[in-house]
């Protein structure tokens, strides 16, 4: 068969792979079809890899096998052992790998062409340069995000003076080096550009605070897609371009959803520094009182309720209270009480994180509801039980124009007949803001560790 005809077949098979990816993502529209969808994606990837083995440019396969098997040996056990609370770190680490791979491919493609001695077009060099620096930014940015999530680095935003000017200068220098590289075809320029891009990636993520992490993880998800698309341009491969575009838009949409849920603009997240301003909450003189209840009282109210809505936050996962929570749900359901979960989009440390943590502890997904779907139901609920969440239920976001949270969409837990908030102490939330809900008449705090309180509730409810 002629090489020409062969390449046509490759293109067709790659097209099938991209279609499989689209179906794979479409499957995620419901938990029922999601597993099938994932199988489509895996089939697409397998098809792409097998096809590439027969590519005319692949002249030796020893290195490929070594890389594939090595990657499987590392990736599979990693994925099997990772704790669900540590998913954001895993995702950040994996993003960095895609970025570094893109840098290696850009460099390898360049040296390959140079080695052949045949002419390399200006357009090609531009594409290699762009693929290289997007990859490098993704790599170092993801490493910093990983460090922050894993708490190797402090999660507080690191801001210094003239930061934005430094970043801008670095970006200009990077683009200048890229231009030099394409004109002079100088490997030196390529590597200098990569070094500058690495610095830029670090500086872009360092100023972003812990509370904004869900946005950063989504943003880097998006970058890893753009890096793949740029590599696709370098290699003139539509499969890489299509897939990169799919992943890139996915990350971009998730970033948008997260920003909206926090009432933050994407620009202010990127510029960073959230959480640095000390919220000077002026005490207005009037002594505000909070109510607190012993576990038994809360248990009594829960038991006599007909509808309970639970609002979980990341604090629940930190306290390892999911299993006790499941027991509580089970006990209440057995008594004929309707129990639902209300999830704020930013509950947890990455998009959809809380849903996974609840699913992990065997809480059925059909009693877990998103904010828009359940907010209207709070007024009909007898008890709202808040566990490890704070800012996402603060009514100040609706009423107090001076609050830093003002404008953020919240779960309307305050509308329930009675609200119980399980809390370790009277500490302010992630954003460092006092919670007005605690002073509401229908709100009562249950002090203690989330897991211990849930266990106590289960015990009191089952005894009675």
């Amino acid at each position, binding site marked *: 068969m002629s090489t020409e005809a062969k390449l046509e077949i490759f293109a067709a098979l790659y097209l099938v792979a991209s279609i499989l990816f689209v179906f794979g993502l479409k499957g995620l529209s419901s938990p029922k079809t999601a597993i099938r969808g994932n199988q489509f994606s895996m089939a697409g990837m397998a098809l792409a890899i097998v096809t590439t083995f027969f590519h005319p440019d692949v002249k030796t396969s020893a290195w490929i096998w*070594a890389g594939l098997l090595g990657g499987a040996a590392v990736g599979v056990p990693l994925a*099997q052992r990772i704790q*669900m609370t540590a998913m954001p770190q895993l995702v950040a680490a994996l993003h960095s790998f895609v970025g570094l791979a893109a840098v290696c491919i850009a460099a390898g493609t360049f040296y390959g062409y140079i080695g052949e001695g045949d002419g390399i077009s200006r*357009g090609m060099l531009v594409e290699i340069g762009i693929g290289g620096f997007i990859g490098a930014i993704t790599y170092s940015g993801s490493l910093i995000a990983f460090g922050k999530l894993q708490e190797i680095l402090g999660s507080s935003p690191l801001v210094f003076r003239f930061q934005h000017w430094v970043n801008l200068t670095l970006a200009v220098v990077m683009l200048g080096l890229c231009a030099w590289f394409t004109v002079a075809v100088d490997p030196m320029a390529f590597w200098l550009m990569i070094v500058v891009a690495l610095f830029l990636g670090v500086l872009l993520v360092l100023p972003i605070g812990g509370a904004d992490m869900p946005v950063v993880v989504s943003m880097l998800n998006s970058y890893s897609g753009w890096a793949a698309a740029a590599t*696709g341009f370098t290699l003139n491969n539509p499969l890489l371009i299509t897939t990169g575009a799919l*992943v890139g838009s996915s990350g971009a949409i*998730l970033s948008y959803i997260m920003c909206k849920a926090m009432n933050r603009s994407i620009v202010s997240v990127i510029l960073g520094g959230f959480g640095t301003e000390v919220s000077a909450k002026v005490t207005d003189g009037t002594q505000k009182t909070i109510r607190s209840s012993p576990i038994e009282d809360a248990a009594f109210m829960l038991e006599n309720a007909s509808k309970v809505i639970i609002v979980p936050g990341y604090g629940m996962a930190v306290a390892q209270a999911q299993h006790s929570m499941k027991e509580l749900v089970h006990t209440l359901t057995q008594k004929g009480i309707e129990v639902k979960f209300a999830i704020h989009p930013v509950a947890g440390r990455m998009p959809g994180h809380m849903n996974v943590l609840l699913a992990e502890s065997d809480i059925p997904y059909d009693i877990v509801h998103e904010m828009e779907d359940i907010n209207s139901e709070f007024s009909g609920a007898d008890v709202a039980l808040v566990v490890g969440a704070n800012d996402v239920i603060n009514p100040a976001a609706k009423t107090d124009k001076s609050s830093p949270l003002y404008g953020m969409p919240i779960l309307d837990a305050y509308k329930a007949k009675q609200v119980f908030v399980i809390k370790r102490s009277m500490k302010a939330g992630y954003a460092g803001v006092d919670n007005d809900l605690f002073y509401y008449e229908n709100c009562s705090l249950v002090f203690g560790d989330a897991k211990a309180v849930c266990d106590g509730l289960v015990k009191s409810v089952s005894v009675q």
Partner: protein
Amino acid sequence: MSTTMFGITVFVLACFVGYHVIWGVTPALHTPLMAVTNAISAIVIVGAMIVAGYKTTSIDNDLASHLVNLLGFSAVFLASVNIFGGFVVTNRILAMFKPKEKTQPTTDQEGSA
């Protein structure tokens, strides 16, 4: 049409497809969405394999050829960690999502069998 323009056409249209498909994903599955997009962004393995499978046609350039292979090997390895890690963890997460138990699950199964 130049190959670059062709690429841009494909890219822009794919972004639209992505936009529509991703808005259809239920928010409850956003974490597995990130895990699986992570895995499929490792499609760069196609490029990595081409670089790793490179062999020079001129004999005097053996060292450079090995350098290219080494870069390719690193890229294949990194992408492969992503592919295996990403898909396995996605499967693991999706398997956790279970609907409410039926009152009599055993009879249900017998009925459908």
